């Protein structure tokens, strides 16, 4: 292979005439990946917890709604979901809302759509973890709560959920890592996060290896930070007396 390495290209000013270097592009991409990952993860935790709890409720309707949510969002590929949120949903909404969405700045649109797609998709995975965590608790916990005079909401709030979340931190860590990797799919609808910037860099500089190596290392670094962060949270919240904590 006669490939000419040129790491200096990263420090060159970008060819579009805008201020900044190619390294700056990568930094922007990293920031976008970071923000998208965090916001999508927060949305996923909220939506996933809500539906996960619903699936364990005695109410048949709520449980069925939770099951339907998981069935739809887990059985359609993520990229298809991104495209449907981006191209289809604005068309199906009433014209005024659809036009308002389409009138937003492209960058805002990419970002909002990406957060929704990624967050709600990941929510279906979080939902399964939360449900499994609640179902794994001994039946006596819930019964004891109710027997003490807590209502159902209080039993969940003060007894079931605090234990559940502390037992499912490991699977949630994997899900968090998966969100950070899945955020790369946002590049397919036009958001210039890390992998999007990597491809743009190749188009402008024709130095694919430098660009791909930087971006790959950035993802590995992000993974490392997430693992450390979740490890810290796990240590702070671990339940005494359990195996594996």
């Amino acid at each position, binding site marked *: 292979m006669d490939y000419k390495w040129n790491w200096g290209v990263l420090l060159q000013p970008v060819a579009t005439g805008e201020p900044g270097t190619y390294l700056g592009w990568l930094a922007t991409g990293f920031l976008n990946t970071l923000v998208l990952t965090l916001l999508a993860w927060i949305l996923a935790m909220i939506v996933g917890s809500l539906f996960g709890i619903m699936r364990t409720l005695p109410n048949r309707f709520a449980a069925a709604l939770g099951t339907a949510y998981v069935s739809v969002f887990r059985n*359609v590929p*993520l*990229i298809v979901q991104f495209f449907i949120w981006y191209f289809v949903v604005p068309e*199906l909404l009433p014209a005024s809302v659809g036009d308002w969405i389409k009138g937003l700045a492209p960058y805002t649109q990419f970002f909002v759509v990406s957060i929704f797609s990624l967050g709600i998709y990941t929510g279906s995975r979080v939902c399964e973890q939360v449900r499994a965590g609640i179902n794994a608790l001994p039946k006596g916990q819930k019964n004891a709560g109710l027997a003490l005079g807590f209502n159902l909401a209080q039993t969940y709030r003060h007894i079931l959920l605090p234990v559940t979340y502390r037992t499912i931190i490991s699977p949630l860590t994997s899900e968090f890592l998966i969100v950070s990797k899945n955020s790369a799919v946002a590049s397919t609808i036009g958001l210039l996060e890390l*992998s999007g910037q990597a*491809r743009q860099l190749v188009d402008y500089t024709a130095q694919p290896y430098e660009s791909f190596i930087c971006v790959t290392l950035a993802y590995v670094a992000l993974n490392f930070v997430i693992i450390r962060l979740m490890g810290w949270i796990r240590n702070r919240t671990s339940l005494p007396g359990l195996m594996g904590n």
Partner: protein
Amino acid sequence: MFEFDWSSIAQSRALLAAGMWITLKITLVAILCGLAGGTLLALCSIAKSKILNTFAKGYVSVFRSIPLIMLLLWFFLIVPQLLKAVFDLSPSIDIRLVSAMVAFSLLEAAFFCEIIRAGIQSLPKGQSHAARAVGMTPVQSMRFIILPQAFKAMLPILLTQCIVIFQDTSLVYVIALGDFFRRATSIGERDGTLVQMLLLAGLVYWIICSLLSLTVKLLQLRNSHD
């Protein structure tokens, strides 16, 4: 509101079917090569040799920490040059398809390795001790005692992973390979029917994956009655 025009879908049936065939080809190659590679890696990771352990661990963590899209881009960059350098291939070979197959096979080897290793380690130690005690070599005990039981126990998880692979192949979009999803979007863009093509693609994936998930659930039930 949007007006649906479903008649255009009937006209593009053949193209979509060809795309689905590519999707299935990648999925099948990824499952077969991934299983073979994953089994080898799993054996490496439980072997007595420190070097093999480290190799398996490193392989798995590298492939699991890179986003699939980056992996596909990497292999689309490397594989064509490698093929040219090593095999001097004719240009008629579909480079995109081969790159995607290589990327998915290597990635799924990492995922299958984790599943198979967990399956082997979930068996009681007495199984391999008993096999050795009746005179089997380590290879024979793996081949006839451990692996058959491990594969049976982890069948539901393996099948779930196959469904995940089937869904993930849609990401070959980024290297412009004409799989089912890519064709659906390009037909939609060509005819101005993107909205219903996307809904159709979602529906097709949903039906196939739901049926497969249901099969896995039934299998799990049957397994638990044994």
